[in-house]
């Protein structure tokens, strides 16, 4: 299982990848796409496509599944464009999460690190939306 983190900000996903590795360990492949090609805030379909392809891997290290987590607004549009370019066989193992980017990435990586499949990892990321941050909320 691999994860792709998509954000309008490169800094945000770089920091999130660091945090994910600290919590879940280094065994789960995490690729990132953040900001536009020229380094501004925004999203770029080619950059996302590259991150997704890197997450899928090659013949020797092909992932069993890829979960993509994204931030807001047009990230979803750019991601859609990026996914259209994929081969059907690759597209079939990629799932897009509606879970929150930070919490979703952390729990997805932890479940992936213990061998959970795409279905379970996606479910954990989606459930992250409902976890209370403070007791009683």
């Amino acid at each position, binding site marked *: 299982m691999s994860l792709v983190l998509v954000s309008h900000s490169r800094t945000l996903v770089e920091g999130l990848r660091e945090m994910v590795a600290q919590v879940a*360990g280094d065994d789960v492949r995490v690729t990132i796409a953040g900001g536009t090609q020229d380094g501004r805030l925004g999203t770029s379909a080619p950059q996302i496509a590259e991150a997704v392809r890197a997450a899928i891997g090659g013949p020797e290290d092909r992932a069993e599944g890829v979960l993509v987590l994204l931030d807001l607004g047009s990230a979803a549009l750019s991601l859609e464009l990026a996914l259209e370019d994929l081969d059907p066989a690759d597209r079939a193992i990629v799932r897009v999460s509606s879970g929150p980017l930070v919490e979703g990435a*952390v*729990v997805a990586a932890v*479940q992936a*690190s213990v061998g959970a499949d795409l279905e379970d990892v996606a479910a954990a990321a989606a459930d*992250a939306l*409902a*976890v209370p941050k403070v*007791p009683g909320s």
Partner: protein
Amino acid sequence: MERRALTILDPSGLHSRPAARFVQVASRFQSRVTVRHGDRAADAKSLIALLGLTIRPGSEIALEAEGPDAPDAIASLTAELAPFAALTTGTAVIES
């Protein structure tokens, strides 16, 4: 069933890094492992379920394991929590 009660001591609760490590250790065992906090229970192999317990300093939790390697699971998980928790009952309680 193997059961052990613990009180969480660490000032920042069972924070995400140890919680993630706890999930990774629990996942090595075949037994079904449950963490109880108050009237709520969570699958110890799911981080999202554990975070949902909102365990805080002073929280009393119980670890329960059911399965062929239950004693080992409880021993390993208790060791994992040692820096963050105190044993409430001292010894493992075997319940039928």
